[in-house]
């Protein structure tokens, strides 16, 4: 082939491939625009005042994932009518949690050369009190029952050329003093009664007992552990293996969590369990699907969690004693917290 012909072949291919690439980008952008249109059968959403204050009635606050102008905004519904009209706040979050008038909102921030993420502390009227930049993609957020402490977990990539080797980093913030523990990896670790050091330690999924103690997941050496943490002593102690994303019941007696069950597919390995802290007995819950979420307690008898759905995620509830069956709480929602 002559050089001229080669250049013609190359130029033709460039035109075709550039067309395909442009079409793909425009198609993706157009699909994104459609998500800003309200879908006919979706839940009704209107903008309005949203408060995290504990005294304005029992309600659920969550990330609204229904298509339309309020997509990804924090919204509330009355706990008694979860599929009713939603009030959207105008505040966008990827992950969220709230308690006692304090909210923690993990969101994406557009930068000049790369997107970043930040944790934003919100007051009861959703006004920003402080923000902290995050080293990776947000996954878990929690606030202590008093509203004084906030914790968050992010996935940190970039440690490996392949981009597939993940680690997590979990931080705890005292929202009153502004004291930030950037990573639990600096804490003293006691594993099975002995001091433990390792470079591969990862923490995720904090749940607070009070303003000094918490439970969380620790991973090291291909195993996951339930740890109990002591914030003033900067120490964690292992209690049990194979327990991820614990969530403490309101009465403080039980932990709901997901557990890797052997024999399940590698991409859907989790089942839900509840651990009684007094007897250390586990009870399997009646959810036959794999759940990758940190549960929240609706009350001392019922847990709520998300599963993938048509608009990203739907919320379900389930009795915490192993009986009953899952019930859909609401569609197109993620990261719920019960207020009031």
């Amino acid at each position: 082939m002559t050089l001229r012909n080669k250049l013609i072949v190359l130029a033709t291919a460039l035109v075709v491939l550039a067309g395909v690439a442009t079409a793909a980008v425009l198609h993706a952008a157009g699909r994104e625009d459609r998500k800003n249109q309200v879908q006919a059968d979706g839940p009704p959403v209107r903008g309005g005042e949203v408060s995290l204050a504990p005294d304005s009635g029992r309600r659920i606050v969550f990330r609204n994932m229904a298509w339309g102008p309020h997509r990804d905004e924090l919204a509330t519904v009355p706990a008694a009518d979860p599929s009713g009209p939603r009030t959207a706040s105008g505040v966008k979050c990827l992950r969220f949690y709230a308690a006692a008038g304090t909210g923690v909102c993990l969101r994406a921030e557009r930068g000049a050369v790369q997107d970043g993420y930040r944790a934003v502390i919100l007051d009861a009227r959703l006004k920003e009190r402080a923000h902290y930049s995050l080293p990776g993609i947000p996954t878990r957020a929690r606030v202590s029952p008093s509203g004084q402490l906030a914790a968050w977990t992010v996935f940190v990539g970039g440690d490996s050329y392949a981009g597939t080797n993940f680690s997590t980093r979990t931080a705890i913030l005292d929202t009153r003093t502004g004291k930030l523990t950037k990573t639990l990896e600096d804490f003293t670790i006691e594993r099975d009664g002995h001091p433990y050091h390792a470079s591969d330690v990862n923490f995720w999924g904090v749940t607070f007992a009070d303003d000094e103690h918490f439970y969380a997941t620790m991973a090291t050496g291909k195993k996951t552990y339930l740890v109990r943490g002591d914030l003033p002593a900067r120490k964690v102690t292992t209690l049990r293996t194979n327990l991820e994303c614990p969530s403490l019941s309101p009465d403080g007696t039980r932990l709901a969590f997901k557990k890797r069950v052997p024999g399940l597919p590698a991409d859907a390995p989790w089942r839900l369990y509840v651990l009684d802290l007094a007897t250390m007995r586990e009870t399997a819950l009646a959810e036959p699907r794999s759940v990758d979420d940190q549960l929240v307690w609706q009350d001392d008898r019922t847990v709520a969690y998300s599963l993938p759905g048509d608009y990203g995620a739907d919320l379900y509830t389930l009795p915490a004693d192993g009986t009953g069956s899952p019930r859909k709480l609401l569609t197109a929602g993620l990261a719920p917290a019960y207020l009031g």
Partner: protein
Amino acid sequence: MYVADSRSTPAAPAARLTTGRRPAVAPTVLALGTVSLITDVSSEMVTAVLPLYLVTGLGLSPLGFGLLDGVYNGFSALVRLAGGHLADRGGRHKAVAVFGYGLSAVCKPLLLVAGSLPVIGAVLAADRTGKGLRTAPRDAMISLAAAPEARGRAFGVHRAMDTAGALLGPLVAFLILRRAVDGYDAVFTVSFCVAAVGVLVLVLFVPGRTAPERAPDAPRASLKAALALLGEREVRRLALCALLLGLATVSDSFVYLLLQRRMDVPDRWFALLPLGTAAAFLLLAVPLGRLADRVGRWRVFLGGHAALLCAYALLLPGWRGAALPYVVLALHGLFYAATDGVLMAAAAGAVPAELRSSGLALIQTGQASARFVCSIAFGAAWTAWGDRTALATAAVALAVCATGAVLLRPAEASELDGGGPA
């Protein structure tokens, strides 16, 4: 486009490409550099968004996924040897390279339809296989196309172009995601289109036969002949030195992690640390390649490890000057610029043309395996003794290995090809 095909007649002796005193960079090298640049834009686009896609796009929890990573690495070393051997048989460097680049290209659209971790794992494994297959034949083609006395520079040019692509990739992905939020399918499609252009440039503008006519008494390319290379003093010494130094080369992620711990690098900058290394690599690859041609590849290779030793040393003490991250990343990039292409340039001088791919693959695999062992050992040392002691141990090990390498000193392979002083 470079007129790389103006010489599509089999293997014009590389020396004839030189004009006057200063040897020009062979068109084939520029074409291969272009292929690498384009391909790296494509692959780094995907690398940049894959974590985000898995977590926010597919809603997967990717923690367990890292476990597969080590398996791929061992696998890719074997594939590399196979690629080298296949390429030498009948001088099919280009055919094997086209297959390797092509395999990686078709993996990009497959990511679109892969919805679960095991399938994504399989697609990424195929992508790695393509990368493993193409590397040795590509380096062999570079070495065969360049004039022996300008090989360091040829590899420097190639590595600089390759790194430029790696730096551009994430930027392209970012721009696409800015136009189309959650447009991961668009990123993968564009990545495929870019990769296809790379394959096309390879097919059209890299000559099909880069190996010289086989001399009647030249060794026939076979597995036996490839292994027999280790019996040759020069190759054996070079491989041994690369292995020895590889055993004391701590993996990149540990360097960044140490830097972050030592300096309290703000979290948001953490992901940018590898870019610092890449930028220094990009800027220094050509000058150090030329330097290697002038003063001897072996010296520059050792010098690169001295730079790495300096980086280790700077990470050790309590000094926390604001310049520390810049200095450490510059030294880290310098280390890559002085070793990555330069080792291949030196090795090319020791391996006969008929076995060039196999020989380069052998040395690359030895070095990569040694680095893998070092990473495991370093992780264990970190666990047992803490990061500071682990780093001090690595520094001592590097100094010892470097001393060993100086003593073993291959009789300056480049001497044979008119390189530096003996």
